[in-house]
């Protein structure tokens, strides 16, 4: 199972095994990793699962879709490596992925 490392805003690291086909958001929520609220449960409807993807991993991710792009435009502290973690599907190629959570999701 791919391992994903989530780094909190305060620097605390959590590594979790996340099944292929799940989303990076689900991996965080199901492993009780703080910093990702995901109020809508992954429907790309709330923008509370914002993460910063480690730049080294960006090329391995499918690009943002239109709806994600639109929602992200309103995220706090948007960066070029910002993604909604509910829109990142876990694949075997993402084993080792590192994401960082922002200070605040709202």
């Amino acid at each position: 199972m791919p391992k994903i490392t989530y780094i909190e805003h305060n620097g605390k690291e959590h590594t979790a095994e996340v099944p292929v086909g799940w989303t990076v958001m689900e991996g965080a929520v199901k492993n009780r990793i703080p910093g990702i609220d995901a109020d809508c449960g992954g429907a790309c409807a709330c923008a509370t699962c914002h993460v910063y993807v480690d730049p080294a991993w960006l090329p391995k991710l499918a690009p943002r879709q239109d709806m994600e792009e639109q929602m992200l435009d309103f995220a706090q502290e948007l960066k070029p490596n910002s993604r909604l973690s509910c829109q990142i599907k876990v694949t075997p190629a993402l084993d080792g992925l590192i994401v960082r959570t922002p200070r605040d999701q709202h």
Partner: protein
Amino acid sequence: MVERIVIIGAGQAGAQAIATLRAEGFEGSLTLIGDEAYPPYQRPPLSKAYLAGDFARERLFLKPDAFYAETGCELRLSLVATAIDRPRKTVGLSDGTKLSYDRLLLATGARVRQLPVPGAALAGVYYLRGIADVDALRQHFQPGTRLAIVGGGYIGLEVAAVAVKHGLKVTVIEAANRVMVRAASPQISAFYEKIHRANGVEFALGAMAERFEGDARAQGVSTNLGRVEADVILAGIGIVPNCELAEAAGLACDNGISVDEYGVTSDPDIFAAGDCTSHPGFAGGRVRLESVQNAIDQAKHAALAMVGKPLAYREVPWFWSDQYDLKLQIAGLARPGDRTVLRGNPETRKFSVFHLRDGVVAAVEAVNAAPDYIVGRRLIAARAMVAPERLQDISVPAKSLA
């Protein structure tokens, strides 16, 4: 001293309350009672990805099993709370046991509204509220199966979208003359009806279901406008708040368990949150909301009040619906009489409808238009006035409206 908290109802609100109570430092005993066999799970995917078979059951659960162990919350599942003894501060359960509480949270949710027509008990008649309902309905999702859906609301239309994709022949029977009559404005209704028709869904609008036909199995629905042949019938005509337990205990109820903006019922030691409540609405008056947002936010506020940190619940309501490749996002509650302003062109499958009340933005319905939704939510929260000319001018970026 609050040492024992009991939560009745293992849904979105119940799960949120556990998290907030522990995060806010409550260290006493915590028990969650649920009448289904499952720990708290997400309902929104049931009529969408889970029905479509794109979403495994274990992904529905809101929290991992470890959450309940780590938070020291005892899960008591497949049990019904049968009575609240307020003087003794106990809850009676269907297994004959009693639980004592210092503070009680009612997160009892809602149940489907039954359609009281002849034939309602026939095999092949379904409702949709829980995992078991979808598992039963889904076995009929074979190409060519005729599905009659009574009710053109969110549930009916989301199921219709999944069903036609699976090759079923779908007819939606709706008593009103347009779909989503309770949840959406006429422009949105017209758009969604058109999309569904283009995907092969048939509609019987203004049709009242009068009888489910069939001997042992359902074979059709008779309406005042004629008969719709069917192999399977789904009734999605709304939900009813579960407030009987509260009523029997003498708690005030008014279209749901009445709570104030802190989630407190008419008993200061009993709180309520989620679909089962009615509360002072953001825009005035009492409202009962059926939504994930309300379950989460109201449960947070109730939990805060339960641990002595009251904070008034004043969030703007929001909702969403996924049908085909369309995401409908709604913020605020529209009312008849609002002035509606169309932003964008429905032909592009990307547009929104703003609702102004005395010039103030009161609601927005956005189709594949997330910026309009987010900006709308902010404008509603700020009770902002925006000129209709600006709202409808798509050369003005949504972001600059707030």
